[in-house]
């Protein structure tokens, strides 16, 4: 469904991605692991066209995403939940979700997408009139995911959804991610919480200073000495 081939991304003179190659197949949860500054967020931003790669190819559904706008990427069925949630704190919960469906014209489709979000996150429904900035951290993460689901994406990019959440909430978020996947959405999951990520993912990649250094099934990665040493504390 999605393939990156030898993607290079620069921030000015900084060479952030040095030839990233990876693949996500329809129906999978694929996790992208790596230390701070490895280039995980940069990879997601390149996919959602917030950044333009200097070279290499990004292919989605057989189409090369070359010089496309972020808007076109959303329209093609890729939604990106950015690191740090980035909800619109000055808008209400409902308005945030409506903006998630910005490119949808059919009101009935928006309404049914909204129903689906309420089903995943009943807590948001109770708070729909509240300003998003007044939500708790966990609720804000749910809103960020819900907002991305409003487009009914075929591929969901999640950037550290468990960041800053208490263990119980982390569990809840990961079970929701699995549920979303079970209903047919393919997921590319960036995480620092390696343990939880490998529990839900089918496959994974390890990124180190802009390069993929390891790839394999979730079991293989969980068993790998390198991953254990670097991230699982033993």
């Amino acid at each position, binding site marked *: 469904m999605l393939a990156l081939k030898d993607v290079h991304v620069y921030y000015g003179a900084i060479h952030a991605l040095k030839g990233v190659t990876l693949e996500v197949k329809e129906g999978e949860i694929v996790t992208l692991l790596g230390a701070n500054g490895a280039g995980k967020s940069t990879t997601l931003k390149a996919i959602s066209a917030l950044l333009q790669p200097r070279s290499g190819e990004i292919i989605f559904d057989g189409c090369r995403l070359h010089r496309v*706008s972020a808007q076109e990427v*959303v329209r093609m069925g890729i*939604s990106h939940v950015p690191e740090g949630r980035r909800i619109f704190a000055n808008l209400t919960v409902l308005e945030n979700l409506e*903006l998630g469906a910005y490119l949808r014209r059919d009101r009935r489709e928006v309404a049914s997408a909204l129903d689906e979000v309420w089903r995943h996150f009943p807590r948001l429904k109770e708070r729909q009139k509240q300003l998003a*900035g007044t939500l708790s951290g966990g609720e804000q993460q749910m809103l960020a995911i819900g907002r991305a689901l409003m487009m009914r994406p075929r591929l969901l990019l999640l950037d550290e959804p468990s960041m800053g959440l208490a263990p119980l909430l982390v569990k809840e978020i990961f079970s929701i991610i699995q549920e979303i996947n079970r209903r047919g959405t393919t997921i590319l999951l960036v995480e620092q919480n390696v343990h939880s990520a490998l529990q839900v993912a089918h496959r994974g990649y390890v990124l180190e200073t802009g390069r993929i250094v390891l790839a394999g099934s979730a079991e293989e990665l969980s068993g790998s000495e390198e991953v254990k040493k670097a991230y699982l504390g033993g």
Partner: protein
Amino acid sequence: MAELVQQLINGLTLGGIYALIALGYTMVYGIIQLINFAHGDILMVAAYVAFFAITVLKVGVVPALVLAVVFCALLGVAIERIAYKPLRQAPRLAALITAIGVSLFLENGGLWLLGTDFRSFPPGTVNNYTYTLLGGTVRITSMQLLILALTLLVMVILQYIVHYTKVGKAMRAVAYDKEAAALMGINVDSVVSVTFALGSAFAAVAGVLWGLYYNTVHPLMGLMPGLKAFVAAVIGGIGIIPGAMAGGFFLGIIEALVSGYGSSELRDPVVFILLILVLLFRPAGLLGKDTVEKV
């Protein structure tokens, strides 16, 4: 008492015009953090468009106003695209200096093209009745009523757009976080254009009203109201829409009271002293504290 009511009426009229102009400053600031110094000159362009529509094309006030609004909305969008958009990633000072440049361009272009003459609208352009209230001691003109009505109408329309329409929600989203807005599929450039179009359209309404109210048009006529409206936007809290409205009315009333009870020579110094006081004690503006709303 009658004197006070009279000054309040005069102040609200003037303040309404300031508020209309201040809205454009504050909306543009809210969305791209730029003080658009050319904003006051849009007002001058609008007054000339209306003036020539009335004197040359011989149309009525309403078509002239519509023409001015459309022309200035397009001009605002063009200025943003040509002068400011290439600098969106540049340091803010660069865009600010460019804005001053655009302002000088419009002013000197106006002087070169139109000369330094003050021009007046032909007599009878607007039917100017005077109504008396409170037993004849308070006077309000039809022009003042028109200004107040148009100002309130524009404000209601703007509130509706910002809060209840898709593009309004997109404007608030872009003002808050451009990158996150882009991830929603919002075309940030279009939203910025819409913001300039709206702000310039409001300034155009203000410009035509100003020209008719004082019955003069001149290439530098945008300077003072532009500056005052900027002060109003800062006093209300730059970036906050209700702040621009409140700041505009507040400033208009203060000016009317100072001219009415003190002297009109004190008017401008008082305005700028007020600005300094606000910047010293409430730099976020009078409405700037608990309001999260930008745009």
